[in-house]
C-alpha cells in the first residue's frame, strides 16, 4: 500500500497489504459463542465424562435397586428360620450357594417349588442372601442418616463461626479443636456402653425398634464427626467473605440475610456436597467396624459388620459367609469414595478453568 509508512527492513511490523478483508459471513462466524451454562450443568457434564464416577453411580443404583426389589421377590425373611411346606427346616444349616437341604430336596422331588438360596444359608438356617440385603440396607441407612446429621450440625456450626468471626469464632473453633483431639474410637466404644445402659431403661418405641446400639451410633456421629465439616465450612466462608463481591453487596446496601442467602451459600454449596459424599462411606465403615466388634446393631437385625463377625466363627468351613458381606462393604465404600472424588473434580472451583 502506498499510504503505509516506509518500513525499516528489520522491523517486525506487519505489512497490512498482505491481508485481505474478512467477508460478512466470516465475521458472523466469529460471533458464535458457546451455549451459556450454569455452574450446576457444567459440573454435571464433567461428572458424566468421568468413567469412574459414572461406574460408581451405576453400582450404587444397582445396590439400591436390589435392596428395594429383593425383599419383594425372595420369599424368606431375614429373621426367620427357613420353612419347608409350613414346617421349620432344621437341616438347612450352612448351605452353600444354590444348595438345597434334604427336606427341601424331598419337597422338590415331590413336585413343590423352593426359591433357591442365592448365597446359601447361615448357621441358624436363615437365608443368607436376604440377610446380606437387609444388612446392606441398614448399613446404607446408617451411613446416609449419620451424614445428614453431620451435614446439618457441621454446616450450622461452621457458618455461624465463620460469619460472626472475632471472639465467637475463636471460642467455637477451640471447642472444635478439643473434640478433634479426642480419640474417636475410644469415645465411641465408651459412649455405646454407657448409652446401652441408659437407653435400655427407656420405653420409647423408636429407640426400642432401632436398638440402643443404633441410637448410640447416631449420637456418636452427632457428637464427634461434624467437626471436620464445621472446619471446612468455616474456612470456605472466611474465604468467600474476603471477596470483593461481598463488599460490593454491602456497598449496594444489601442486608446480611440477603448476602448469606444469595452470595455465601451458593458459593460454598459444592464443598458441602463433596464433603457429604465422602462422609457417607466413612460412616458406613465406622458402623461396620462397630458391628464387627459387637457394639453395633442388635440381633437379629443384621448389618454388614455383624454378618462378617458371625461368619468369622465358621471361617474355615464356610468362607463364603464372610466373602459376601465383605465384598458388599468394599463395593459400597469404594463407590462412594470414587463418586466423591468425581464430584470434587467436577465441582471444585479451584480445579476449574
Amino acid at each position, binding site marked *: 500500500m502506498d499510504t503505509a509508512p516506509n518500513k525499516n527492513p528489520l522491523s517486525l511490523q506487519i505489512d497490512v497489504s498482505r491481508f485481505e478483508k474478512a467477508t460478512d459471513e466470516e465475521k458472523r462466524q466469529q460471533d458464535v*459463542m458457546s451455549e*451459556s*451454562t*450454569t*455452574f450446576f450443568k457444567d459440573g454435571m457434564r464433567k461428572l458424566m465424562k468421568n468413567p469412574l464416577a459414572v461406574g460408581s453411580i451405576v453400582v450404587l443404583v444397582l445396590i439400591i435397586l436390589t435392596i428395594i426389589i429383593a425383599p419383594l421377590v425372595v420369599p424368606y425373611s431375614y429373621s426367620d428360620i427357613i420353612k419347608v411346606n409350613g414346617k421349620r427346616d432344621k437341616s438347612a444349616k450352612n448351605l452353600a450357594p444354590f444348595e438345597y437341604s434334604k427336606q427341601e430336596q424331598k419337597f422338590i422331588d415331590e413336585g413343590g417349588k423352593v426359591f433357591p438360596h442365592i448365597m446359601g444359608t447361615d448357621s441358624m438356617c436363615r437365608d443368607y442372601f436376604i440377610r446380606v440385603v437387609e444388612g446392606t440396607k441398614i448399613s446404607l441407612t446408617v451411613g446416609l442418616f449419620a451424614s445428614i446429621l453431620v451435614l446439618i450440625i457441621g454446616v450450622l456450626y461452621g457458618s455461624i463461626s465463620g460469619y460472626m468471626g472475632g471472639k465467637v469464632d475463636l471460642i467455637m473453633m477451640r471447642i472444635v479443636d478439643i473434640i478433634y483431639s479426642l480419640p474417636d474410637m475410644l469415645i465411641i466404644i465408651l459412649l455405646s456402653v454407657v448409652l446401652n445402659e441408659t437407653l435400655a431403661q427407656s420405653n420409647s418405641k423408636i429407640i426400642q425398634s432401632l436398638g440402643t446400639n443404633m441410637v448410640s451410633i447416631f449420637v456418636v456421629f452427632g457428637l464427634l464427626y461434624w467437626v471436620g465439616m464445621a472446619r471446612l465450612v468455616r474456612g470456605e466462608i472466611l474465604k468467600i467473605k474476603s*471477596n*470483593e*463481591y461481598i*463488599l*460490593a*453487596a*454491602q*456497598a*449496594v*446496601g*444489601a*442486608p446480611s440475610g*440477603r448476602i448469606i442467602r*444469595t*452470595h455465601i451459600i*451458593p*458459593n460454598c454449596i459444592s464443598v458441602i456436597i463433596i464433603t457429604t459424599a465422602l462422609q457417607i462411606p466413612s460412616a458406613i465403615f465406622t458402623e461396620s467396624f462397630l458391628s464387627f466388634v459387637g457394639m453395633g446393631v442388635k440381633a437379629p437385625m443384621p448389618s454388614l459388620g455383624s454378618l462378617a463377625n458371625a461368619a468369622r466363627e465358621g471361617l474355615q468351613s464356610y468362607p463364603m459367609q464372610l466373602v459376601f458381606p465383605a465384598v458388599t462393604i468394599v463395593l459400597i465404600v469404594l463407590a462412594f469414595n470414587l463418586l466423591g472424588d468425581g464430584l470434587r473434580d467436577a465441582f471444585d*472451583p479451584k480445579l476449574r*478453568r
Partner: protein
Amino acid sequence: MSNENTKCLVEVQDLQQHFPIKTGFFSKTLLKAVDGVSFRINPGETLGLVGESGCGKTTVGRTLLRLYKPTGGKIYFDGTEVTDRNMHSYRKEMQMVFQDPYSSLDPRMTVEDIIGEPLDVHKLYKSKGERRDKILELMGLVGLNAEHATRYVHEFSGGQRQRIGIARALAVNPRFIVCDEPVSALDVSIQAQVINMFEELQEKLGVAYLFIAHDLLVVHHISDRIAVMYLGRIVETADADELNDNPMHPYTLSLLSAVPIPDPETARAQKRIILEGDVPSPLNMPSGCAFRTRCRYATEQCARECPQLTDRGNGHMVACWNK
C-alpha cells in the same frame, strides 16, 4: 461554612480510620490507615487520589461509603451529615467500582442478577419487565450486548467484567461514584476504553467521581483536581494541570519524575528523583511530617511538627515546611 456546603456534593472533614492491630499476645497498636483527610468534591467533578500502595487510598474510598466505620471525622453529602442511621438512603446516591474485576463479581450469578442486585435491594422496579428493561438499558450504557444478560461472569474478559461492575454501580442512579483503582487490573489498551467510558458517563449522567489510582498519567487525564496521599495524609492538592506543571511537595515531585515518558529522548533528559529508604511502617510512624525520613529537604522542624495543608494560591494546597 454552610454556604459552601450547599455548593459541594461530598465533603470530608478530618476523616480518620484507625485499625487496632495485634502486635503481641496482649498488646494492640493502632494502624492509622487514614489520619485526618479532608477534601471536597463538587457535582459532576472528578477528584483524583494518588499515592503508592498502602498509603490508605482504598481505605478512604471504603470509609467514605461506610464499608468501614470511620473512627473519626465527618462526611457530608449534599450538605447533610452521613451517619450509620441514614446511610441506607445514601447507598442510592453513592456507589463504588472495585479494583479487581475478578473477585468483585459473584461467580454464581448471571450478569442480569449482578446488575439487578441494587435494583432488588432498593426495590426500584414494579414488575419483572421493568427490571429487565432497566438492566438492558444499563448494559447498553456501558457497551454490553443484550445477549450477555444471561451469561455468567467467567465467560467475560477483564474489560467486560469491569463494565459489568460499572453498570452495577450505575443501577441506582448515583450522583457520586468511588472508583477504586478501576483500571489498574486491566491491560493498557482496555484501560483507555474504560477511562473514556468513565468520561462519557460523566458527561451523560453528571456523576462525580473520586478516582483512586496510582498511575499519575491516568489520573491527570481524567481528573479535574488531584490529591496526593502519603501514609494516610493528603500532602498536596491542586487542579490537575497545575499539579502536573508546578508540583511543590517533594513527594509529588518524585512521583511525577517516575511517570514514564513515551519519547525516549525527553525521557533521557529528565532526571528521576529516586526516593531513598522504604516507606515507614504505618504502625510506627515517624514524628512530625511522615515523609521526612525520605525527604531531601528535611529539617529539624519537620521532625518536630506535622505540616498542615496551606494555600499557595489558586487552591493549590501543600503540606510542607520547606516548599
